[in-house]
C-alpha cells in the first residue's frame, strides 16, 4: 500500500483457525490510537491496530453476535467514510427541515404582524 496505494482486506473467517487463534491474532494486533463504533444494523467496532494502516473491523448483528471480522490494510476503512447516497438523502432531509422551519417562522411573523 505504501508504494502503490493498493488496499487489502482479509476475511478472518475464511482462514481455518483453531480455537483461540483468532483471539491471539486480535491480542497481537490491538490496539492503536483510533477506536470507532458504528451503529448500523447492530454495532461495528473499528480499531486501528498497533501497526498504523492495519485496521481490525468487527461487525455484529443486533443481537451482538459477530457476523464478520476483517483485517483491512488501508488509510481508513471504507465503512467509516460518509457514503455518497446517504449524503444525498441527508441533504434532501436538511433542505426539507430548513423549508419547514422557514415556513413556520414566516407564519409566526405574519401572526405577530396581524396582532
Amino acid at each position, binding site marked *: 500500500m505504501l508504494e502503490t496505494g493498493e488496499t487489502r482486506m482479509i*476475511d478472518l473467517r475464511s482462514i481455518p483457525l483453531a480455537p483461540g487463534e483468532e483471539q491471539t491474532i486480535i491480542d497481537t494486533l490491538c490496539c492503536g490510537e483510533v477506536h470507532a463504533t458504528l451503529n448500523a444494523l447492530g454495532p461495528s467496532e473499528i480499531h486501528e491496530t498497533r501497526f498504523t494502516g492495519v485496521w481490525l473491523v468487527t461487525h455484529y448483528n443486533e443481537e451482538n*453476535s459477530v457476523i*464478520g471480522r*476483517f483485517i483491512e490494510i488501508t488509510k481508513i476503512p471504507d465503512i467509516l467514510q460518509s457514503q455518497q447516497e446517504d449524503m444525498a438523502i441527508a441533504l434532501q432531509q436538511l433542505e426539507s427541515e430548513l423549508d419547514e422551519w422557514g415556513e413556520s417562522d414566516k407564519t409566526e411573523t405574519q401572526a405577530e404582524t396581524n396582532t
Partner: protein
Amino acid sequence: MTKDLSRKDTTLGDALRSKGISRRSFLKFCAATASMMALPPSMIPTIANALEKARRPSVIWLSFQECTGCTESLTRAHTATVESLIFDSISLDYHHTLQAAAGHAAEAAREAAMEENKDKYLVVVDGSIPMDNPGYSTIAGISNYDMLVDTAKHAAAIVTVGTCAAFGGIPHAKPNPTGAVAVSDIIKDKPIINVSGCPPIPVVITGVLTHFLTFGTIPDLDNLGRPKTFFGQSIHDRCYRRPFYDKGLFAESFDDEGAREGWCLYKLGCKGPTTYNACATTKWNGGVSFPIESGHPCIGCSEPNFWDGGGFYKAISIPTENLTQTAIYSAAAGAAVGVAAGTLGRIKKSAAGKAHDKVTIDDLEK
C-alpha cells in the same frame, strides 16, 4: 418522489432505502454476506452493486407434504435483520400458508405470477410429493404432482427448502405410505438447489436467494445438489467438540462426567461425521447455539433418509479397536479417521435407505 414499492421494477436498493437502511448499513450487510458465502472481500463492491440494482424476483412457494416448520424457520427470525429484509424484498406471489387469498383466488395469483414472469420466477418448494394416490395431498383440487410440473415448466430455477422437498424427508420414511418422492425425482430439466434440513437454517435460504440476486446464477452445488458454501463440510469437521473426539474423550450417557464436561457425543449416536450442514458455524436461534452445543447429538436431519438411518441414539459405526486406540491414530492422522468413519457411516446409511431397512447397532458392527 416516493417510489411505488409494489411495482415489479422496484430494485432491492429502493426497497431497502424505503425501510430506512443506510448505504453504510447496506455495505456492512454486503461484507457479512461475502463472508457468509465464502467469497473474497474484494467481491463486496460487486455484491453491493448487483444487489442495489437487482429487481425484486417473483417467487412462487409451493407447500406439499410438509409440517410448515420450514416456513416457520424462515419467518420466525428473532430480530429484523437485513437477511429478513432481503426475504421481505422479494415478490412472494404465492404462498398458501402466508397469503390472505385462498382457493381459486390464490391459484389465480399463482397463474398470474407465472404468466407475468415467464422463465424468470423462482419456485421454492417445501414438502415431498405423494406418488401413490394424488388425493393424499391436493391444493384447490390440484394434485401436488400436477402443480409442481405446471409451475416448474417456466421457472428460472427451483429451490427445495427442507429435507422433505430435497430428499423425501419424513413422509419418505419407511413404510412411505404415500409414495413420497423428492422434487428432483420428478423435475429433471431445471436447475434445482437443495437447501436441506429439518428445518433448514434461515440464513442458508436467504444466502441462496442473495446469490441468485447477486450473480443471476445458482451457487456451486455438492453431489446432492446443496450449496457447497453451506454444506461443504461436515458437522463433525466444524464441531467445537472435535478436539475431544481426537483425544478419545466421549460422553457415555447424557448425565455422566463426559456429558457434564462437554465431551464428544459420538457414542451417543451423533451423526455429525455423516452430516453436512452449517449448524456448527451459523448456529440457531440468532446464533445462540446448535444441538450439539445444547448437549444433544446431531440427528443428521439434512441428509437423505435420515429417519431410516438406524436410530438417533445409536453410534453410526463402531471402530474395530476401542475408541481410545482409534483416537491415538486420529491424533496421528488428523481428520482421516473422522472422515473414514463418516464415509463408512454414509455408505451403510445409504444402503439402509435404499432398502428401507432399519439399521441396528448390530448391523453396523458387522
